[in-house]
């Protein structure tokens, strides 16, 4: 049996990659992908602990997370399409009209 630490390390690594992507990228599509990475890092955690404790609740929540992620992508892609239509670009640093 693979010890849970490995799963946690994997999850942390994936989360950090996602976080890094959000902090450094300017392309909205890459933002969306990074968010997906972070969500999946959380999923890995859920499944790993479910596996360790021998309890399926965590896996059930993993499925929930995927469904929510799918819905979120649909909304996110919609926003990106509108962004492109209105500003002709998907660079998040240029779209700064919603501010003080």
């Amino acid at each position, binding site marked *: 049996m693979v010890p849970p630490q490995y799963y946690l390390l994997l999850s942390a690594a994936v989360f950090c990659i996602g*976080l890094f992507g959000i*902090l450094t990228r*300017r392309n909205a599509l890459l*933002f969306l992908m990074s968010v997906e990475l972070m969500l999946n890092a959380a999923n890995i955690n859920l499944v790993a602990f479910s596996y360790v404790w021998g309890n399926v609740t965590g896996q059930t929540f993993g499925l929930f997370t995927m469904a929510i992620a799918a819905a979120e992508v649909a909304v996110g892609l919609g926003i990106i399409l509108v962004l492109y239509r209105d500003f002709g670009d998907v660079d*998040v*640093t240029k*779209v*700064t009209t919603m501010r*003080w």
Partner: protein
Amino acid sequence: MAGIFDFVPAIVLLPFVSFLVALAVGNRLPKGGAFAGIVATAGSFLLSVATFFTVSGGQTYNQTIYTWANGLDGAVTLTFGLLIDPLSAMMLVIVTLIATLVHVFSLGYMNDEGETGLPRYYAGLGLFTASMLGFVVADNLLMAFMFFELVGLCSYLLIGFWFREPGPPSAAKKAFLVTRFGDYFFLVGVVAVFATFGTAAFAGSESFPHLAEQALHGEHSVNTFGFEPRTWFTIVGLLVLGGVVGKSAQFPLHTWLPDAMEGPTPVSALIHAATMVAAGVYLVARMYGFYALSPTSLSIIALIGGFTALFAATMGVVKREIKQVLAYSTISQYGYMMLGLGGGGYIAATFHLMTHAFFKALLFLGAGSVIIAMHHNENMWEMGGLKDKMPVTYYTFLSGSLALAGIVPFAGFWSKDEVLYETLVHGLGGSPILLVAYAMGLLAVFFTGFYTFRMVLLTFHGEPRSQTARDPHGVHWNVKGPLVVLGILAATAGLVNMTPVAELTGLEIEFLHQWLGHGIEGLTSHHYVELLESQAGYHAAEIGPIVPGLVSLALALAGAGLAYFLYNDAEPTEHTDKLGGAKTVLYNNYYQDEYQVWLANSLVQPFSRGADKFDQGVVDGVVNGVSSVSLLSGNRVRRIQSGVVSNYAVLLTLGLTALILGFGLLGGWF
């Protein structure tokens, strides 16, 4: 069973309805709504008389009508209620009678003189009467206070009736503010009564005078805020007395009353005889069971009363306007009532309240009649010789004057004499301070006789001294009728309580003593006498009423005789000029107004400025400071909302990191 007491609220409500009618449709009614007022006050009068007879049959009524704030968990309950006992029944008859006559008189004084704004006038009269009647029947101090204030408001409205001229609005404001100053103390007193006793009822076993009495006997404990019970009751009594001094125009808050002469004359009659000014004295009589517990309050009441009686009478001596003389006589006569109350003469003071209501209403209405005849010239030096031109006015006015001066057998003699007698016997019976008050009251009798007959002689006797006096304007039945009714009453009202005659003949003719001796337990004159003896240490000395009565009669006759000697010429000269500087002082009312204005300008105004500075600077400064700090910080903080999503992500991440670090540090992970 529907007894007469079920209709008592109607006594108060009828004039109120006439107020609403005059206000709403007065313009469309004949005579500007006067008839509505006459019908309403006459109806109230009839109901009051019926109530009076029911009460004389031995029935009384003390009932809560409406609870408008129900106190939970031991908090006070605030109610409206009716208290009908001999005192209030008598007062109801007086007030409604005078109000009816004043309404009738107004037909002559206002309608026939072509005044405008009559609906406003009659609405004011209606509300004034209703407020006073509500005050009379009030069964607790708070309700009394509320109607007391309404009375003050109505006086403001009516004194300032001719608001287009400069004088009346200013006089109205003065009346309102000066009485208001006294009412501040009254309000504090009401709150103190509630805080001490948890009730403000006048009558019954749960009333505050009764609880106070029990507290002094140690049978019941009340919250006296760390004072001795008697000391505390004195303080509370004096606070309430503040309102009385303001409304009843006692020194030093009497200055509003002479100025209130700016109002229409019938209003002056109503204010001085039956409503506003009487309210103060009536309040002391109403809660006499409370004042009787404190000899200090009683002495203060007696001293204020005696001093005011003398002080006002001296000012009345030099005035030129007929209404001014009457105004100072009112102050002086209310001083007598206060003297009577403070001197242990509850019945005497009530008696004087009654007789004064009749003869002072008469004198004011008579003066009103003279003013109509003189085309609204009030200066007595331009009158003269009106005796033959207007005999009805002259003889009724003379009846009122004899009553005012206290000449036997007119009403004022019996009541004023009894006031002085009661004060004297209690003073000699071991309360020497009362003798000081008595001396002042006695001296004032002389001045009263003098100024009264100076007024009569200047107005009616001698030769006419102006064109209008030679050819006066006639007056109608609506002026003469009320004068005749009141003239008869002023001559005869004193006969209900002839103490000296009762003493001489041994007859049981002191009807007022019998009248006020029965009624609700704890509110009878017998109970008050017991209280005065056991609590205030008032003991009656053994002297008959004959000699003191003769002394005051002699003084009154001396005053009247001096006036006759000086002024009964065809062309009288202004003898008061011989007083020199004293006259100037008297004519300027001892510079009371100037001194009060000086107080206001040099003490109150700087204080108010300071308070204003504190309010604008410190209180508002703190509030404005708080708002400008949040405005400024908001202005700065909003800059982090840059619109760049990456920045938000950075902030989120930093926030999360800080949170985890914080938890870690506090949770001891490191």
